[in-house]
Structure formats: C-alpha cells, structure tokens
C-alpha cells in the first residue's frame, strides 16, 4: 500500500492551529476594515471636520494596523506551509506589476488594477488575493498615486476583491465558462468597489441645500439607503460604470491566458513526497 500524501494536505493535518490562526487573521483584518468603514454612522454627532479631512485622525493608525496584520498573515502562512519562499516571490513580483498597471491611463474610473487580484485570488486562493490587493494598492500609492486618509480604505477594498475572488467556485474544466464567470464577477466588483469606497467619506460630507443625498446622524437604515442611492446615482455611478465595463472586457480577454500562466507556476509551488 502506498500512501499518497500531498504536501499541502500533510501541512493541513499537521498544523491545524496555524491554519486556524491564518484564517483568524484575515477575519480580524476584515472586521477591522468593515468597522472602520461603518463606525462613523454610529457616531451621535457629525464630526466637525472639514469634508476632505474625513478620517484624518484614524487613517494613519488604520494603515499601520492593516499592514501589520497583512505581514502577520504572510508569516503565519509561511509557518503553516500554506506559502513558501517561492509564493512570496510571486506575490512580490505580481504586487510590483500590479502597482505599475495602475498607471496605465484610461477614461474615468477605468483601471487595470483589479485584473490581477481577481485572477490571482481565483487561482491561488483568498489569502493570496487579499494580500495582493492590499499590497499593490499600498505600493502604487507610494509610487505617486496619492497617499491620504483614503489609502487604508482603498487597500481594504482591493484586498476584499482578491479575497472574495478566492471564494468563487472552481471551473477549471470549463475554461470558457471560467472566463465568462470572472468577467461578470469583475463587472459586479467594479460597482461594489465604488459603492463601498464612497462610504469612507460619505458620512463626513454635508451640504445643507442637498440634504436629500447626505447622511445625517440618527437616520434609520431605509432612509439612509435611499439617500445613499441618490448620492451614488448622481456622483459615482458613471465613474463606476466605466470601471465595471473595463473589468468585464479585460477579464474576458485576459483571464484565460493569465490563468494558464498562473497555473503553470502553481504546479511548481509544492511537491509531493510519496512514501514507499
């Protein structure tokens, strides 16, 4: 009898604690992210800060916490064998490539930056996708795309794009369906990213003349959603439409070849030792 043991499987049996820790780090990071997006809605009074200064106090702290948590995720993945030096190298290279892709100009919200997090998250799993999203936004910001209180929120949102892409069903055997699925997914994420990202400043802005599209403390959920809906349609929708359409087209064109490439590398990440 020969017992086949995938190295990955071996690791999972041997280090259930580390694996749980790994998942816990991602959950904690996501909770902190969600909390930081939504806590302003729970404040009793609108902050007196000027519009553009939304989160000016807590953003640096949030940035540090997020980066520390991501590094912890990298280390715990290393310790548990979910990642190894080769995967870290791939993460680094893809992060750099993705940061540079952000510089490719396009109309309005159109950007190349979601292509890799979506495809890599799908191919290499939620942790990898999350890290790639977070790190590539951070790196590109320092490359000149603007560091500000919005940065940690962008990082969280892009991280979730990768994380959620890792939870899609595997359609490895149907390459066409796979590309279409990812393209539609990219379309949805294009809007979702916009909807979420507006929230980092929305509760902080107010214009007395147009109160029907701004947040006021004490609003109930339904009227808050109504107001946000109006705000979204008038400000961010067209912007997001281009991003979503861009994602759709890019993924339709490039998802299949990029996936082929990523999977060729994936074969080399781990090896199997067969006991005789």
């Amino acid at each position, binding site marked *: 009898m020969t017992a086949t043991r995938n190295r990955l499987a071996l690791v999972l049996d041997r280090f259930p604690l580390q694996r749980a820790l790994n998942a816990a780090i991602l959950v904690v990071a996501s909770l902190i992210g969600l909390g930081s997006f939504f806590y302003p809605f729970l404040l009793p009074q609108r902050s007196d800060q000027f519009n553009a200064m939304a989160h000016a106090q807590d953003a640096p702290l949030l940035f540090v916490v997020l980066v520390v948590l991501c590094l912890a995720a990298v280390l715990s993945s290393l310790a548990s064998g979910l990642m190894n030096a080769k995967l870290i190298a791939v993460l680094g290279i893809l992060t750099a490539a993705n940061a540079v892709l952000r510089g490719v100009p396009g109309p309005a919200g159109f950007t190349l930056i979601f292509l890799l997090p979506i495809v890599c998250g799908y191919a290499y799993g939620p942790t990898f996708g999350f890290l790639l999203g977070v790190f590539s936004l951070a790196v590109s910001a320092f490359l000149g795309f603007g560091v500000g209180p919005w940065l940690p929120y962008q990082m969280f949102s892009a991280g979730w794009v990768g994380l959620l892409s890792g939870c899609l069903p595997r359609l490895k055997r149907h390459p066409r369906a796979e590309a279409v699925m990812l393209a539609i997914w990219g379309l949805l994420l294009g809007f979702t990213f916009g909807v979420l990202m507006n929230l980092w400043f929305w509760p902080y802005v107010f214009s007395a003349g147009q109160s029907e599209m701004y947040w006021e403390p004490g609003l109930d959920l339904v009227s808050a959603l109504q107001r946000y809906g109006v705000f979204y349609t008038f400000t961010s929708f067209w912007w997001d439409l281009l991003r979503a359409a861009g994602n759709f087209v890019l993924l339709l064109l490039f998802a299949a070849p990029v996936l082929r490439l990523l999977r060729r590398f994936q074969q080399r990440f781990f*090896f199997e*030792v*067969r006991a005789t």
Partner: protein
Amino acid sequence: MIRFEHLSYRYPGADATILQDLSFEIAEGEFLLVMGPSGAGKSTLLRCLNGLVPHFYGGTVSGEVLVDGRDPVALGPRGMADLVGFVLQDPEAQFVVDRVEDELAFALENQGLPPILMRKRVEEALDQINIAHLRHRSVSTLSGGERQRVAIAAVMTLQPRVLVLDEPTSQLDPQAAEEVLDTLVKLNQDLGLTIILSEHRLERVVQYVDRILYFSGNGQRPILGEPRQVLSQVELTPPLITLAKALDWSPIPLTIKEGRRFARKAARHRPDGNKAPEATPPSQRRNDQPPVLISVKGLGFSYNGHPALQDLSLDVRRGEFVALMGRNGAGKTTLLKQLVGLLRPDQGRVQIVAPTSGAAMDTRKASVEEIIQYVGYVPQNPNALLFNDTVRQELDFTRHGHGLPPGEYEGLLDTLGLTEYASHYPRDLSVGERQRVALASILVAEPQVLLLDEPTRGLDYQQKASLVAFLQRERARGRTIIMATHDVELVANCADRVILLGDGQVVVDGPTRQVMSESLVFASQINKLFRDPALLTVEDALSLYATDAS
C-alpha cells in the same frame, strides 16, 4: 558519499515518471560522467543532488537521496548549498552581479560569513580556478570559457564537497572546453572533490572520468560502470570508440594516443582494393557551378565601437553546405545575423538573391520581412523562438506569419523526433528538444537558405546523426545551409565547405577535407587518429579499413 535509494520522480503534469526506482552509490572523490539521450533525465538526476528537484520544479518524489548523510528533499537547495556546488547548463543564468569578484562573494554574503573569511575564500577560489587575472572584469565582457570558469569559482567559494555540472562545455569552442575540463580534472585530483557532470560530446571527457552512468530513459535501468565497460555496451559513442568497436579493437581506446597504436597497425594491414574517398566530391567541379545566393562584399560591423567583422567577403552558392568555425567571439553569430538582416552592415554590403526571380536584395534597404521569405535563422538560444503554448502552435504561428496556408508538417515533426511532444508546452522540454522545436518552427516556412547557430548544442550522438541525415536531405532538395558551430565531428560529417573566422575576418575558406586536415584544433578525431587528410569520419575509415568477412 552519495546514495540513491529507490528514487523515483515525476514532473508536475507529466504522464510518466522521468526517474524510475534509481538505486546506486557514488564514492567520495569520484569523477562521474552522466550520459544518455537528450530528454532521458540527466539534468533531472543532477538537480536531485541539491534539491532543485523537487523544490524548484514541484512534482512527485518517492525514495531517498542522501548526499553525505543529508537529504536534499528535506533541506532544499538552501540547505545543500554549502555541500553541493551546482553549475547550470547556461552559466549566464547563474550570475547575479556584474563584477567577477562580487559574483564570487555573493554566495558567501548570503551565508552570512564574516568579511575577513569572505575575503580569504574569494582569494582561494580565484587561485584554485586560476582566474585571478579576471577578478575586476565585468562578467558581460568575458568569453564563454571564462564565464564557465567564473561560474565554477562562484560555487567553489562555499567549499562544497560535491561539484555538479550540467553540460558545462556545450556552448564552448574546443579550446575553451579544454580549459574548463582541465580545471575540473585539477579540482578532482588536487582537492579530492567529487565531480558529477553530464555531457553529450564524450570525446572530450571520457579519458578523465572514473565511471560513467548511462541513462537510456524510458524507465530502463541505468548502467553504471568503468568507462570502457559502459561504452562497449551503449550505442551513443564518440567517433573514436565507434570505430574501435566496428574494427574490434580491444581494449577500447579512450584517447587518440591509445588509438594511434591500433591505427598504425591497421594502416600496415590495410586491405587492398579499398580506395580512400576522393578529396573533393565530384559535385564540386568548377564548370557547372550553381548561382550565387548570398554575396558579402567588404562587410564591416562593430558593436559600440568594438569591431566584430572587418572587411569580410564571401559568396555562397545555391545548394552549398557551409560550416562557419572559429573561436568564441570570432564573429560567427554576427555574420549569421547580418545574413538575415537582423544586423545591418556598417561598411560594405550583403546581398541576398531571390532564388526564383534572381532579384538581388541589399540588406541595408530590404526589411527583415522580405529577407525571411528566403532566409531562415535558428539562433543559438532556442528559447528566443519559443513563445506559444504548444509545439504545434509554434509551427502554425510561423506559417501564419509567412502568409502560408496551414501546412502538413507531420513529416517534419517525425524526422525531428518531435511527434510525441506536438502538444507539449515548448519551454518545458529539455534543451535538446527545444533546439529541435526551434529548428522545426523555422523549417516549416520552407526557407531557401537555412542559417543555423550551434544546432547540435544539447543533442546526443543519435540525434546528431539524424540531424545530419536530415540536413543532407534538405540540401539534396536544393536548400542552402550555413551553420556556425564548434562541433568538429558534425562539420566532418556533413559540411562541404568550411570557413574559419578569426577576429571578424575570413582566415581560411575551402573544402572541408582540406581545411580540416590542415588544422590541428579543428580536426576530427578520425583525422587525428590516422593523420590522413582523406579520412574525416567513421564511414571514411570503415570504407578503407573494414575487412570484409565475406
């Protein structure tokens, strides 16, 4: 020192195991040659010794390798680096920094050694390999042989006890190969270093090695033994040994010196009636010469002020098979690139004559697209040509690019032994296989003139023989072939004209037999053995000396 126990290995996504249940031992201080057909798993075996297989390549392993009690599968390349020095097939792939001295210190820095010790180790390695004069040079300015020796020195700084080399001389001219092998012999004898190397051109190494491990691939058990014993059992042998086996010389001579004794005896008992081959084949007669296809006049070219070709003139006629020979850096590749229009002349001109219309194209004016209608160029590094997902797609791509209809090329794949790889990813193939895919992807466009740069790199004797047969068939169909090579035996077997380049100029230009018999360095083994200008190849010698039993 090294023990394999029931080791099997399969590459990820591969159907079959490439190494199958290997068990053998290598003693400390041994000089072992690994040989076998291209793609049989020689490189894979070597990579097991420092953990590159499976750590870099993934896949499935079973069984065990132990190197001095350490397990490469458990420790990985990092854990084996101080014990096993590994020199890759392509030394350039191994260099990290630009200066020779820095390159030598690089591995030491990664091991975190104190600077004083690093200094000492670098000095020692420079002396051991005898390259102290290169220490301040930039790696990119070194010749092929120098590069290979720097690569060896760079792994020697870690003072490994085993040195593993994957085809260390496959890209080198005969002199440079000699330098590298001398270095290895010295390391083996002076330091008792265990050396394991793979090589296709056995004529260079068999005399130095203690044992040979022969790999036939296809899951067959490898043969391990003394050189004479192994060579008498296998098909792939250098010309000297092939001849010795055919003429029943015993014990089998491994060097020209050992062979001379038999050759002298054979010459004395030469059977009557056997005639030496004619010095010039009848097809070369002056009066019915075919038209000139390529005409080079006063060609001069320099790279950033470094002259590569100077006042070079030559004509190549339709149906000729020309071998360009000469030292590394003599300008062979530059000349080939000029002929296909990838480089344009600084002085002089290159003209390509379209075989059908007779119209002459000047490469200073014609575009590469026009030239490649007639001229196909297979570069030295096959990777440069391979970028599609399967071998078949590579061929389709070429035909599409040339505006040709998708053609029948099963015959071509079959001749080149590529049928079974038709749907493989080209870059996953072994070096020898990639070389053939590159050749196929050019030949599929049916160019009139074929330019080959080192076509036998990474090919075994059998593949070389089938390549020779293939090229001769192509030539018989009217194709013109110009080939840059260091491979003396290949030239002896198929070229009818040799052009020897030196410092970017034509030094000698003449029929193969004449040029080869007048040169010592560029002479074939059989030529050296009999010291007879009429004899270049095993077939020549056999036609003269074979005593017909019937």
